[in-house]
């Protein structure tokens, strides 16, 4: 049972990192980023190549930065032109990116399943008193929680964080008050892509790499963000842990129903409260 809770926590934290990026991009840009899963997958594969040649630690640092730069480019040459048009256009644009990335991954790394070896320090198991648990998963939990705490602190206490929240609430007023909304948006998209990249690297040694990993987790991430509330950051954090736990527990306790659980959860939440647990109605 203890191990199941830890498993749920590990998956939940992974979802947390991934969905906070998605929630951030939605909150400010109003973009439902369909490319999020593809970016996560791309990050995992790039990390595979880098850690094969050098070390996992280098991949852990460089890959999120690379993808943040990719995010900047996407914002600069794509999303910026769509401000003021239907939000569906942005969905379609990111959907197009998904297809391109999926093709690139299949061409460069092939279609067979791969795994990244965790670094030697994290390879074994750790005795936690109640049970022994794979060290790498503990690392994922700690790392993910640290990153999310950092993100929350940044949004809450820093000056740029204030700008981000202000631009998310009211773009026009924030702009009139002297915030460079375009630059803030670019920062946010870059940060969101970077977080997806980080989640991809973290997932590498934990889950299996395959060309389907992006779409699979994308849907789960959407569920997290929708259940948590579009346009909020804290809501998805709660929802990610919830769904991670529900996923881990249902797989063991009710295997036949486990696959339905996240979708049913999303269905119920959307029907009863379309704005999600912590979302604001205006975000829609």
């Amino acid at each position, binding site marked *: 049972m203890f191990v199941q809770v830890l498993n749920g926590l590990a998956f939940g934290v992974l979802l947390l990192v991934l969905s906070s990026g998605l929630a951030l991009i939605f909150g400010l840009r109003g973009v439902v980023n369909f490319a999020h899963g593809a970016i996560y997958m791309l990050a995992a594969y790039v990390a595979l190549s880098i850690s094969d040649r050098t070390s996992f630690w280098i991949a852990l640092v460089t890959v999120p930065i690379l993808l943040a730069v990719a995010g900047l480019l996407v914002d600069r040459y794509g999303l910026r032109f769509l401000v003021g*048009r239907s939000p569906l256009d942005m969905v379609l644009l990111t959907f197009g990116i998904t*297809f391109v990335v999926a093709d690139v991954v299949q061409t460069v790394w092939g279609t067979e399943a791969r795994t990244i070896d965790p670094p030697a320090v994290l390879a074994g198991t750790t005795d936690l008193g109640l049970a022994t648990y794979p060290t790498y998963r503990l690392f994922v939990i700690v790392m993910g929680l640290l990153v999310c705490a950092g993100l929350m602190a940044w949004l809450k206490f820093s000056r740029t964080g204030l700008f981000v929240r202000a631009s998310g609430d009211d773009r026009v007023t924030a702009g009139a008050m002297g915030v460079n909304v375009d630059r803030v948006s670019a920062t946010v998209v870059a940060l969101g892509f970077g977080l997806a990249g980080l989640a991809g690297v973290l997932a590498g040694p934990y889950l299996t790499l395959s060309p389907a990993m992006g779409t699979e987790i994308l849907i789960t991430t959407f569920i997290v963000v929708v259940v948590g509330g579009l346009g909020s950051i804290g809501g998805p954090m709660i929802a990610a842990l919830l769904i991670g736990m529900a996923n881990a527990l249902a797989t063991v306790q009710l295997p036949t129903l486990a696959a339905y659980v996240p979708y049913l959860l999303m269905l119920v939440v*959307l*029907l009863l409260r379309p704005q999600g647990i912590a979302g604001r109605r205006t975000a829609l």
Partner: protein
Amino acid sequence: MISSPTDITAGDVAEPLAVTPPPTHGPTVAETLRRANRSARWQVLGWLVLAIAGLGAPWVISLYQLQLAQQAMIMGLLALSIGWLLRQTGQLSFGHAAFYGIAGYGTAYVAQHADLPIGLTLLAGIGGGTLAALVVALVTIRVPGIAFAMLTLAIGMLAWVAGGQLHSITRGVDGLNVQLDGALLGKDVVMYGNPVEAWPLVWGVLMTVMAALWVLSRSTWGRRLASIRDNEERMRFSGYATYWPRVVAFTVSGLVASIAGSLNLVTTSFISLTALFWSTSGLALIVAVIGGVRSVLGPPLGAVLFILLQNYLAGSGNHYQAVLGAVLIVVVLVAPGGCVEILERAFTAVTSRLRVRRDQPDPSTVPHSTQGGRRAQAR
């Protein structure tokens, strides 16, 4: 300054009293209606020509190409259902694969377990898909914007998960081979496995659906739908029902997706779990957008382009995904109306050029500068 009435002469008042036409901002109502009628007449004519010309396809293109064309038409139907919904109600559905799949599996199930004439079997399948669409619409239609897209995605995925669990009915990813029997439209239904035999049916269905959706969009009801899309609150305050029209629109669109699903089963005798997966909806959506969702011609056109592209790129390492994604990105950024918009722009450019040439009295006597000026004006 006018001091007394006698100072006013007839000449003074004539100028200000002269009736000047009110400033016009764009065409008048009458002119707009006249243009709409003219455009409708051209569209009906174009549809007739296309419908009749399309029937001749088996004599013009090879069997393999005909097979591809048939595939494109079925995909075009699914794309049309999603595209029409998007255009008419502004709602983006990622769940139409569910109705497509339910109709396909429903048809297969009835064919295997009930001894009904083939016509009724197909109706049962299509009815099943449409009913599913109605139920989904009743529950979800109030949900706004992007949440609606997510919700349909969740429902589509639920259908997919359920399809995987009901292995005894769906046979999962292995797929289901179904032998339909009986006579459909005077032919043994097995014959429809041959694209030459199936083509008139597939083409006829697509053309009928296109015409029906076109008429629906232009009807009072269709315009009311568009008004609800543009400003729901205002329509509600004006005393119009806004819930039921959208439910009906979603159901109609589900009906079209179901027809595509059943037609797919008739022509291929095969269905697998992929039919229910959300990427089927996603692909149909992309195809619809690339073709253009502003008209009923767009989605089928997009499907044809997609199948051609996929087939053309199949030989060279199969990069159709990347090309498709890139095309989608470019279309969204440059021409939100899709290929149809690009064609329209080209058409307008050509006709306005022609009109300029016709207006010119004699090209040799007109100096160059005026020619350029006229052309610029016409544009």
